């Protein structure tokens, strides 16, 4: 099979990156129709906290453990969506099965294997979502009494993420044949890139949501997302300037790795994981096996970071005192989009729960702001990788491995550009435009903003969370820790360990502090 990027539009129907854009924008477009009074996304399934025995006057009946978001937010079809209840699981399954199977077909995957794998992963994910929302895992101290509990783990939605990852890891490490079969459908990067397009809806919708409390809060939220956008860009540039040379030097001087291997490893550890390792491998004309080995390492280490860092940033430092420093540091430290966005969302759940408990409910942060800070830096990092690889290619081809007659093409920057960010920014800016073009929270425009909300919530909340859950499950399934023990990686494993924990993470925290310290999340507690 041959697959090449010859033209600027190569891969639009055959690459996962583009399919994240098409899937994300299709459902974003369906959501927008709510402004015209048509609700086509209210079927999105969403879980609620539940208990086996509901106390008198309490809440949490199993029969309401899943509901269609339209039953709460739809302006035009609330009654219909109320009737769906648990059936919303099937609606969501059927519609996303059709949508993703079209993508799988266009990408020439084994459609039958994808369909079966997707079905298993989807229902495992739903089952995990259900278990993770048992009040013992999810309820926080301020509402234990509603579920008749005297103690609960207070993990919020983070419990479901952790369970999904654990189940995925069990499959990936103890049922390797099964994991191999599921790998046709276990696509954490496709799922997370689609989720990040949905996150674009979230970022654009945040001011609309805040405006429901007050126009001033809506403006504050719009300002905050703008600041995160700029701070993320600057922090990323600084990080690039420090991370890459630092890791390159560690690999060369301390671990004596060959120049090309050090360059590929330097990008993989310091920039954005697999995509950077592959981009750099191509730029320095390394044999593909170098990028492949580094990629295998990156995927495993990223999951280790995903397990360790959200808890560390929540309970050790910076905690609730600087939540956006924590989010931004996560974006710079955790490699691969999937692990970073997943870690960011886990951090979001942990910190929102923590602040609510610490203040006894007097402070509540809107969901998704911390995730946004984690993803924003990662999106910038992803966008810069094409440019960075282009610079490296120039240095290598024209200076280090000088080969007369070879030319580096500027089109390489585009071929390496992460296309899913186009969907992310489109969704964000269109919802932001809806906010500002309709009075920015002024009473005369609120009816449009309310209609926009009805279509935005199922996408930014229902679809996004579902795709985050699918990402956690898939990450676990494709992560095989035994790869770390394979002797052939040798020094690379140690370079990764030393560079990541003694250099990248501390520097990421310092840079995040410099550019995000003092940014506050608006309080939406009534």
């Amino acid at each position: 099979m041959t697959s090449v990027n010859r033209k600027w539009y190569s891969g639009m129907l055959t690459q996962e990156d583009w399919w994240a854009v098409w899937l994300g924008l299709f459902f974003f477009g369906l959501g927008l129709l709510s402004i015209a009074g048509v609700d086509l996304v209210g079927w999105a399934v969403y879980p609620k906290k539940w208990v086996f025995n509901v106390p008198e006057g309490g809440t949490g009946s199993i029969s309401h453990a899943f509901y269609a978001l339209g039953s709460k937010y739809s302006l035009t079809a609330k009654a219909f969506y109320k009737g769906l209840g648990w059936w919303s699981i099937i609606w969501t399954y059927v519609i996303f099965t059709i949508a993703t199977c079209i993508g799988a077909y266009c990408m020439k995957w084994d459609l039958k294997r994808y369909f079966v794998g997707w079905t298993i992963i989807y229902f495992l994910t739903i089952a995990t979502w259900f278990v993770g929302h048992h009040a013992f895992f999810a309820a926080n101290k301020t509402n234990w009494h509603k579920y008749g509990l005297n103690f609960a783990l207070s993990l919020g939605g983070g419990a479901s993420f952790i369970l999904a990852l654990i189940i995925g890891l069990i499959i990936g490490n103890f049922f390797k044949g099964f994991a191999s079969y599921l790998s046709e459908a276990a696509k954490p990067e496709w799922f997370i890139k689609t989720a990040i397009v949905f996150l674009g809806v979230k970022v654009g919708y945040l001011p609309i949501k805040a405006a429901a409390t007050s126009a001033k809060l809506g403006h504050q939220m719009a300002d905050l997302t703008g600041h995160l956008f700029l701070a993320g860009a600057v922090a990323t540039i600084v990080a690039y300037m420090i991370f890459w040379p630092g890791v390159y030097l560690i690999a060369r001087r301390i671990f004596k790795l060959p120049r090309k291997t050090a360059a590929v490893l330097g990008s993989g550890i310091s920039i954005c994981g697999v995509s950077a390792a592959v981009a750099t491998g191509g730029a320095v004309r390394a044999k593909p096996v170098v990028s492949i080995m580094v990629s295998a390492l990156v995927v495993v280490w990223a999951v280790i970071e995903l397990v360790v860092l959200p808890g560390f940033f929540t309970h050790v430092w910076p905690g609730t005192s600087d939540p956006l420093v924590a989010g931004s540091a996560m974006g710079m430290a955790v490699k691969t989009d999937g692990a970073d966005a997943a870690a960011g969302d886990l951090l979001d759940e942990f910190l929102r729960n923590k602040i609510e408990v610490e203040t006894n409910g007097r402070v509540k942060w809107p969901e998704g702001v911390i995730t946004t800070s984690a993803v924003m830096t990662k999106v910038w990092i992803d966008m810069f990788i094409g440019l960075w690889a282009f610079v490296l290619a120039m240095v290598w081809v024209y200076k280090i491995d000088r080969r007369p007659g070879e030319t580096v093409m500027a089109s390489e920057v585009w071929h390496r550009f992460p296309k899913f960010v186009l969907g992310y920014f489109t969704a964000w800016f269109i919802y932001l435009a809806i906010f500002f073009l309709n009075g920015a929270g002024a009473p005369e425009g609120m009816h449009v903003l309310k209609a926009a909300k009805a279509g935005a919530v199922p996408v930014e909340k229902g679809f996004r969370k579902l795709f985050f859950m699918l990402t956690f499950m898939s990450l676990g399934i494709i992560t095989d820790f035994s790869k770390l023990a394979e002797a052939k990686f040798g020094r690379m494993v140690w370079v990764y360990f030393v560079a990541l924990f003694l250099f990248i993470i501390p520097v990421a925290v310092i840079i995040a502090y410099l550019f995000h310290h003092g940014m506050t999340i608006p309080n939406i507690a009534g």
Partner: protein
Amino acid sequence: MEMIISHNGRDWVAENESLRVSAPTLELLDIRLTEKMRAGHMVARGQVKKVFMAFNNATIPQWIRQYAQHYFNRIVEVRG
């Protein structure tokens, strides 16, 4: 002229319908390509021909392609 470039685990391989060259390094690949093109009269003496090599991304394992879908393309000038 357009060619597809890939790596078979040992050698770089550049090929199209009329030509196939392989070598362990890109430098040697370019030298062999020049020799073959000269021998096959594909480039006239004194002429400079641009050869566009598009990397076959199928060389990269499928599980990695979800993270990155491009390795590199290159242009090589072959002098006759």
